[in-house]
């Protein structure tokens, strides 16, 4: 077992407000690790801080045995630490192709652009049909596919996804879940997943963390969590 991403005692927030009060987590290579918790507990803040868009106030972020805590966000992305952000953050007036092409400018992505593009079209054939359509005119589901596709074209070493199924129909939520699982099984992709559909997250995840008020309060292999009655009651309503 090898740890690809290690976060130790991460503290960060917005302006004067401290949101994360010392978050620690590990993501093992080739696994899907999920980060769960109710609204406003700091899941998105955790991912923005790991990606470097938010500065860490203290604590350590190690990626691939290298400390990246102080690196600017674009350097982390160059190393393959990729975030599919909450709310998609596409460039709405650029075409689908342009959105994907922009993700291929780093060295690691450029080398594999054609290959990754094929992979992405394979996963989301709808995108291939809409290559020259403006991203802002895609349906919500298609936009989410494009956001994930853009993440994959960046040629990630780890793909962090923030609520990829937000606002999608139950059928599409399952589809997205299947895609993530396929990426792990077939490509060996490492995933850190924040998901509001706990059902979907536990059905594909290997390991889980539960956050409350800016802290990790529970963690364990998904099987273990599923045997924890408190967890089941709080997050699965069982």
């Amino acid at each position, binding site marked *: 077992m090898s740890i690809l991403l290690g976060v130790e005692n991460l503290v960060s927030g917005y302006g004067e407000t401290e949101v994360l009060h010392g978050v620690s987590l590990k993501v093992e290579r080739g696994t899907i690790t999920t980060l769960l918790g109710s609204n406003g507990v700091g899941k998105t803040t955790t991912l923005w801080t790991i990606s470097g868009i938010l500065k860490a106030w203290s604590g350590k972020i190690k990626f691939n045995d290298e400390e990246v805590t102080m690196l600017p966000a*674009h350097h982390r*992305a160059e190393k393959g630490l990729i975030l599919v952000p909450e709310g998609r*953050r596409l460039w709405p007036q650029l075409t689908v*192709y342009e959105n994907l092409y*922009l*993700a291929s400018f780093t060295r690691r992505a450029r080398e594999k652009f054609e290959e990754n593009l094929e992979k992405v079209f394979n996963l989301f054939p709808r995108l291939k049909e809409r290559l020259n359509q403006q991203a802002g005119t895609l349906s919500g589901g298609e936009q989410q596919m494009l956001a994930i596709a853009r993440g994959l074209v*960046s040629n990630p070493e780890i793909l962090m996804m923030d609520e990829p199924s937000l606002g999608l129909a139950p059928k599409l939520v399952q589809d997205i879940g299947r895609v993530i699982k396929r990426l792990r099984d077939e490509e060996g992709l490492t995933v850190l997943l924040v998901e509001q559909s706990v059902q979907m997250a536990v059905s594909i995840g290997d390991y889980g963390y539960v956050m409350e008020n800016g802290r990790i309060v529970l963690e364990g292999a998904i099987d273990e969590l599923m045997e924890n009655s408190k967890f089941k009651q709080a997050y699965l309503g069982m």
Partner: protein
Amino acid sequence: MLELALTGGAITKGIIMGLIYGSVIGSVAIGLTIIWGVMKVVNLAHGHIVVFAAMMSAFLYLTYKGALLFTPPIAFIWIGLLGAAFGVFFYYTTLHPVIGHVDTMTLKYEMSSLMATFGFGIALYGIHYILPNYVHSYSVNPSIGYSIGAAGHTYIVFLGVVIMKSTVLMSVLGFLLTLVAYWLMNKTSMGLKIRAVAQDARALSLVGINPVKVKVMTAVLATALAMASGVLFLGYSTSVYPDIESTVSPLCFVIVVLGGLGSVLGTYFGGLFLGVMYWLTLELTGQQSIALAVAFAILLIAMVLKPDGVFSGIERKLSFRAKRG
């Protein structure tokens, strides 16, 4: 008394002179459409930068007695390159403090960029008056643009209209400058990044691109184009003084709005259209102030009828953007 001279000759002359003028003034507006239309920085310094370049090249041309290096067809290239460096200065002094770390340009940031660039423009205007040995108005030889290997007359007669060869040359160079800008914005990865940065800068850093670098590039491109076109403007008009800015700036804004914010070719066509309207009115009424008034009336009408720009579709039709394969 206003007399309308509505003759065929006047119309022909108005159109020809208007196209020549429009090509030059259209290219002058390209820098503005890039920085305003694409990056959402309402650049009130644009006109000042154009006039600054025109003043500088006139000063050099007269100081060095028309040496080849300082004639507009040569000078517009290297003064444009100088403008690239000047763009870095412009960005870090004026734009970076305001928009350097902004993710998505909203109205609030457009307004603060407006204030910042206004200040930069005033400062640049002031420089004309504090430099030693710097007069406040220049007139250069009307054949200025045509002094390379020139033989024979400095004018040609076309359809009965007498045209200075140098103005034709300036308008051709304006067209070429436009093509270069169009190519950079629509066919290169730099242009793609520039188009993306105003929409979502943070998303650029998520795919490994430094958004601040892209903002610098935008300012560099816009300033380089502004300064290069300033030299063409001098070559065309043959006289320049700091206060000409108060004519250049509003015209640029009209043209950019006509052309559709951010559309390079649309802006150029906006320039041609405005040039023709201006010259037709001038030919028919003989009064420059009326011609300018007509230009602004066109803007008002255009903004009511087609707020997205009259010529913005041209770019969409001609542009293939980055496609696969």
